């Protein structure tokens, strides 16, 4: 008989532990009203009840998994390859977003080294050119990076795809509309 996978059991126990942790530690520490509160002479449901109920669902599911489905015929596992993949993808996206956020202000800082009257990115953020530069670089990096990971290698068509996609997005979101902000212009 082939060895039965233990992943449902493990997943179930992890869920149970998580649910108990949230219900007994996080929720009580991070809510200001309890499960039932006395307000205006009456009792009413406090803020802590709903999240606690949510954890009950997770707890129930975890217990069920660990007890009743531990011998299910096919169980899913997370393998090392998948972890590597998702880390690489997430890394590329995070880096891309950071590029979007800081390119504009960084360039301004650089330029300010040579100016007596310093510019502020915040005031320039609606002018064409400045408002696109972060998004363009970050977007191209992100798409090219992801395509390269998936195709196991950087190629010209990856870069072209990144450029086309990012430029298309600028055309669709930014050029026609006055009110819309591409990253990072809503935050600075």
């Amino acid at each position, binding site marked *: 008989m082939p060895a039965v996978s233990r992943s449902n059991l493990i997943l179930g126990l992890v869920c149970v532990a998580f649910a108990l942790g949230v219900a007994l530690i996080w929720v009580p520490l991070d809510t200001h009203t309890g499960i039932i509160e006395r307000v*205006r002479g009456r009792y009413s449901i406090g803020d802590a009840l709903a999240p606690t109920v949510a954890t009950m669902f997770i707890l129930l599911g975890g217990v069920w998994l660990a007890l009743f489905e531990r011998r299910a015929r096919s169980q899913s596992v997370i393998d090392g390859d998948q972890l590597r993949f998702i880390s690489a993808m997430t890394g590329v996206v995070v880096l891309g977003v950071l590029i979007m956020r800081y390119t504009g202000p960084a360039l301004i800082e650089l330029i300010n080294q040579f100016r007596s009257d310093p510019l502020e990115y*915040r*005031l320039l*953020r609606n002018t064409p050119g400045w408002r696109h530069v972060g998004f363009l670089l970050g977007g191209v990096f992100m798409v090219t990076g992801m395509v390269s990971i998936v195709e196991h290698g950087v190629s010209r068509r990856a870069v072209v795809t990144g450029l086309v996609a990012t430029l298309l997005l600028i055309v669709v979101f930014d050029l026609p509309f006055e009110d819309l902000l591409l990253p990072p212009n*809503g935050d600075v």
Partner: protein
Amino acid sequence: MRKYVAAAVAALGLAASAVSASADDWAPPGPIKLMIAFAAGGGADTQARLVADALETRLGWQFIPEQVTGGGGVNLLRAMQDEPNDGTVIGMIVAESLGYNLFTADVGLSPADFTPLTTTAGAQMGIVSRSDTGWSSFEDMIAAGQGGQEIRFGVMSPRLADVAYLLGQAQGVDLNIITVRGGRAVLNGVTAGDMDVGFMAGIQGAGVAAGDLVNLASAMSTPLVQTPDAPLIGDLGIEFSADAFFMFVAPGGMADAPRNALSSAIAEVVSDPETEAGALIQRAFGGPLLIQGADLEALVTQGFDESSVLLDTVSD
């Protein structure tokens, strides 16, 4: 507070008030972030965006609207804390946000940390029930309550819940107070029968005109335009009222020039029925209600200070 508001409203009337002329020369140094404390697509959000549109058309100022909802407006106020006060950031809230909500949120802020600009309109807040309950006056409802009937009273904010509670206590009826999210939820609840009566801030207009709903009382310090004979809440045994104003606010310590320029510009577009913003205000509220400058500061401060009294009274 209600006596103060009644006096202020009487003094100002419902016309635009004149503001100092030193506002004319100011222009914003960059695009203006317009923070909106209301959910997208609702009436209040539409009002804010229309005001921005009208100012863009009239003065060429650029606005970037941004939703900052939650906490009864306190989230917007907290987010506004770190913003510059040179006129590039303003927000739209209700006056209650700077009063009761800010007080109870207990985040170390008070109205003094902000620069109130101007109110735009006052909501026609009434105590409203379905006409098929058989109640045609506030007394009818109280009589039913005292006769043992359980009365479900819908409210849409914590302050209104406190006011409703005190009203019930003053009248000797133990009301079943149900807090829901937003004025429309009260309307839906009352119409569906989940609640018997509730506060409604103008949304009852069509229903009252059609005869499905009835204004039992005015929750403001002034009579309801639609039902002027309905009693005022202040005459029903409590000293608090439920006036609701929409207003614009800016980060604290703003200089006079941007403050006056923004206040008068907003007041102008809101009072002009030719603009979409003005037309909306006319349709929804019967006209603008403008309180500005030092008057507005006094109003919000009083609301803030009065909150501690309200809370103490409730917990007795």
